[in-house]
């Protein structure tokens, strides 16, 4: 029997049992597509976080007041009054520190004309755009003079800009009111999306930190200080030096707990990376289960049809097929089934991944390993359960195979 003939006989046999063929393929399609999509979701989330961390800058150090890690009285992070503008000035002198910006924030109602918008009012320093590599698209960030004089100037995040003025209107020079005080808009930040910490970085108004302290909140401390190290490789050491300095300045003895926290961006992000890794593992195991279920489906359908197929083998043997003719037919059947089912599964998986990104704007990233593993597993299941019973049947005397039940 030639290869072409075997292929023809196999295709005819598949066409003869359309229901069985379809159900077997369905098992493969669902299993393969599920694995690809789930893993793509997990990998996508992971890689988008990694990209965000890269964008945020791996040389960033966050110094925050209070210590939520400490036992006993818990002063919430940033609510403690232990960090001062003087601390910031001292940190500026630490070896390895390039830029820094004290931060203090409040929520506020922002009004422009007859539109208003509740948002985060973030007090910061002139170097923030440098630390975050984040330029203004219109106008400019405020300058040192504004900080020194606690000027009522504001830089809008793109979301706030849209809400108060509309995306097409240039708001530079306009007056907005924050908690009933007039501020002059000096610039608009470019859109940046979610931060590595999961906040919308565009729904914010930046003002000098001195302004928040004196005009909006009436406090003398800052909540945090954002620092960038001169070189990424030196970040951890710089963070240590800052901690040592603050301990001296705050007169903290070796044994007692810090009243501040110094963390690098990488440390903070690693928590989230770990979380997504867990999620990916979870998704992958769910997908693995569906692959297994698909495999069991394939197995069931193959085993259920064993009687009919054994008779078919008996008949073919009886009219003169050799054992290998029949085996080849069944092998080709199983391979065709696996290839077609697996390929449809891959196509569906890729489509679903794309669709999830498109319609739900969840990041996905198709993992070639997942595609390979899913496909190979489905193919092996299909070929094994298609071929193994056939092998047993072909070893029988034709009449025994014909009478099999």
């Amino acid at each position, binding site marked *: 029997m030639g290869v072409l003939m075997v292929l023809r*006989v196999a295709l005819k046999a598949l066409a003869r049992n359309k229901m069985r063929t379809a159900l077997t393929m369905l098992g493969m399609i669902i299993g393969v597509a599920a694995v690809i999509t789930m893993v793509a979701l997990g990998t996508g989330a992971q890689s988008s976080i990694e990209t965000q961390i890269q964008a945020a800058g791996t040389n960033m150090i966050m110094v925050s007041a209070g210590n939520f890690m400490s036992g006993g009285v818990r002063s919430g992070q940033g609510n403690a009054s232990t960090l001062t503008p003087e601390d910031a000035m001292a940190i500026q002198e630490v070896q390895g520190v390039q830029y820094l910006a004290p931060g203090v924030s409040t929520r506020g109602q922002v009004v422009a004309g007859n539109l208003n918008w509740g948002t985060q009012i973030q007090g910061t320093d002139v170097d923030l755009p440098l630390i975050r590599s984040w330029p203004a698209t219109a106008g400019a960030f405020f300058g040192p003079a504004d900080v020194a004089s606690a000027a009522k100037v504001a830089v809008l995040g793109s979301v706030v800009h849209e809400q108060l003025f509309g995306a097409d209107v240039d708001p530079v020079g306009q007056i907005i009111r924050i908690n009933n005080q007039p501020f002059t808009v000096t610039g608009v930040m470019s859109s940046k999306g979610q931060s590595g910490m999961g906040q919308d970085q565009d729904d914010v108004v930046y003002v000098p930190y001195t302004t928040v302290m004196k005009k909006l909140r009436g406090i003398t401390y800052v909540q945090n200080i954002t620092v960038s190290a001169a070189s990424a490789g030196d970040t951890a050491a710089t963070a240590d030096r800052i901690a040592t300095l603050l301990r001296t300045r705050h007169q903290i003895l070796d044994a007692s707990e810090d009243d501040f926290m110094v963390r690098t961006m990488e440390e903070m992000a690693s928590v989230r990376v770990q979380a997504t890794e867990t999620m990916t593992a979870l998704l992958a195991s769910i997908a693995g289960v569906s692959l297994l279920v698909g495999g069991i489906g394939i197995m069931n359908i193959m085993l259920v049809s064993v009687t009919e197929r054994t008779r078919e083998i008996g008949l073919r043997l009886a009219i003169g097929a050799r054992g290998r003719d029949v085996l080849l037919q069944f092998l080709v059947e199983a391979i065709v089934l696996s290839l077609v089912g697996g390929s449809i599964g891959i196509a569906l998986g890729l489509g679903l991944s794309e669709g999830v990104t498109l319609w739900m704007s969840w990041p996905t990233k198709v993992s070639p390993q997942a595609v390979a593993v899913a496909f190979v597993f489905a193919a092996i299941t299909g070929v094994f359960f298609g071929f193994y019973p056939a092998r047993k049947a072909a070893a029988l005397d034709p009449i025994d195979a014909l009478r099999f039940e």
Partner: protein
Amino acid sequence: MAQAAAAQAGLEAAVVAASSKAGDTVADRTDNVISTRNLVRTYEVGEHLVKALRGVNLDVARGEFLSVTGPSGSGKSTFMHIVGCLAKPTSGQYFLDGEDVSQMSKNELAAVRNTKIGFVFQGFNLLSRTSALDNVELPLLYGGSTLKTADRHRRAKDMLAAVGLADRASHHPNQLSGGQQQRVAIARALVNEPSIILADEPTGNLDTRTSIEVMGLFQRLNMERGITVVLITHEHDIAEYGTRIVAFRDGLVVTDRPVTRRRAAADELAALPVEAEAV
């Protein structure tokens, strides 16, 4: 006249075969297409040992038309399956064209089944959800046949026409009556032009007229082409279409006699009143 002569020759061969006994020389056996010696077949059913064949000695000469009769369960089908190389005897020997079948490899047996033997099963054994034409064509796919697709189709079609089913070529077995399925099975057995036809109750599901037609087909193949036919039937009048009748009982051949007044299907068919054919 020629037909009568052939029948006469078959008759003589049958008489010779009937007189042969166990322990014949190999030279004697080679004259026979089928030759069995002490054929035993037992089945284990749980604790029981069913003896389907208890030592069958039978010789069938080339060109003979042998009718096998016997009560249900007497071992006729079991014997046929061994003769058709579909099953193996528990003990004893079986020579096909003088060759010891037990010495043949699986592939050789497959080739024998494909080219030498046309088997009509008691239960048709057609491939379900497959057209009559494809069913008939099946033997042509195997055995290294070099026929072109078109030639295969043509031969299968011709064979279906020969059994009166030309217009049912595209029908599936479940769309055919029992008798029609029977005839598809016969067409499949004949399509590879075997030198031996083994038919297990081929007229079991057929009305009188169709039975005679099928027997006519077998007789024609037997007399015109010298094809050896072994036919199982429990109807005595059907057995009379053969040249020789053997009867099985309890796994043994109990009677073996030549047919003295052989029926001729062609003549009977001509004598039958013409009726609207209900195919």
